[in-house]
């Protein structure tokens, strides 16, 4: 009972909303091609440090919002983000003992998984797939941003 009260639900909601906005806000072309998936980054953070706050539902809903927002095939981002949330949650105790820089490698892998899933679904649904190499650079940028994102989101709650 006490444990449930300590879950940072508001921080999760708020940070995911901010990440959604950051991900869809119009940017100049050169910036938007290297923009990493902020939603995925924030979801990975919460999956490590508060896996029970949102469960799988919050990542799934965040991904679905992203789909509706971008007008893409429904549930493609939802599935991808739920998948990386699940992988992260099963490993969260090991990840908590790592430094932020060590975690970056894992984050890079997760962002890659995210991209591959979305890319695969886009191909299946006959959407023109981006053939630019930029798509595969986004996870790298995301991994580089990870320590900053983690510190920033980390300020919203006390880690247990």
């Amino acid at each position: 009972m006490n444990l449930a009260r300590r879950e940072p639900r508001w921080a999760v909601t708020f940070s995911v909303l901010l990440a959604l906005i950051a991900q869809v806000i119009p940017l100049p072309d050169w910036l938007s091609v290297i923009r990493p998936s902020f939603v995925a980054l924030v979801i990975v953070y919460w999956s490590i440090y508060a896996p029970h706050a949102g469960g799988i539902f919050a990542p799934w809903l965040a991904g679905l919002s992203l789909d509706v927002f971008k007008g893409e095939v429904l549930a493609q981002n939802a599935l991808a983000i739920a998948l990386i949330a699940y992988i992260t949650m099963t490993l969260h105790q090991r990840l908590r003992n790592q430094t932020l820089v060590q975690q970056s490698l894992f984050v890079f892998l997760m962002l890659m998984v995210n991209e591959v899933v979305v890319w695969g679904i886009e191909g299946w649904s006959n959407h023109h797939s981006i053939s630019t190499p930029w798509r595969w650079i986004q996870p790298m940028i995301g991994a580089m941003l990870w320590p900053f994102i983690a510190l920033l989101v980390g300020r919203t709650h006390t880690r247990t």
Partner: protein
Amino acid sequence: MAVFGAATSRSFGGRGPSFGFRFFCYAILSVVLMFYDRRGQEQGRGWLDTARYGLQAAIYPLQLAVNSPSAAWRWLEESFTTRETLRAEVDQLREDLRIQKLVTLRQAALEQENARLRGLNALLPNVIDKRLVGEVINAEYTQLRQRLLVNRGGTHGVFKGQPVVTGDGVLGQVFRTGPFSSEIILITDAEHGLPVQVVRSGVRTTALGTGFSTSLELPFVPHNYDVKVGDLLVTSGLDQKFPFGLPVARVTKVERDPKQPLAQIYAVPLAGIESDREVLFIWQRTDHPAAHATPEALAVEAAPPVKQP
């Protein structure tokens, strides 16, 4: 029982099903959604469209939030424009209005003449019955997707497939509606095709989007068809969506390579694809001759020629 999330359920204990099981459920749900969404796109309106309609209402505040920085910037810019700039703008608008009035004067005479030639004893009303101004709240101009998000939706009467224009020409059509917003696919979107007609020669073809906001492609024109640089393209109305005669684009390049079966023709859209902040949704009179062709009329046109004995 908890095979997948063994580590986590041990530390917290007794918190419902494991992550693995829950993920499995959501994955199944996602696949079902994707499948029906895809099928709905192929077969027209499905129940998922209704769900998306609702979701779009839920997400509308977020869309407004995303637009707020640029809206605030424009507001600031507007409030700090000087008196001189405003005065110049007013003068410019007055001048434009004067020119437009002259054009309309001529148009009234032409319409009367047209009615006489057609043998009608009454003037036809304008094919455009009703219009609605919408403001762009988000835009995407990538090679993959050329889309706009506009702050008018189902509650304002906007419907799927509705023509969207600006003062200069055709912009696109409504792709998806939410209650308060709608997504517009631009004519330059790589997945969009628009039946057009060359005003000068009457050649009918299709203008495809290229993914670049300054270019349309006309890939289905044989060499011997009469299309020249500078020709005006208007909608032909054969798509049953757009009325006949809305200006679309001007031909900028015609390449006739004898080795290729078809000519390569490019045109530049007349509407400022990336510059317009305001768009017009239009409703047309269906009983008007210039309205889109009815299915019956098209069926007659497409009927196979009678075999000669």
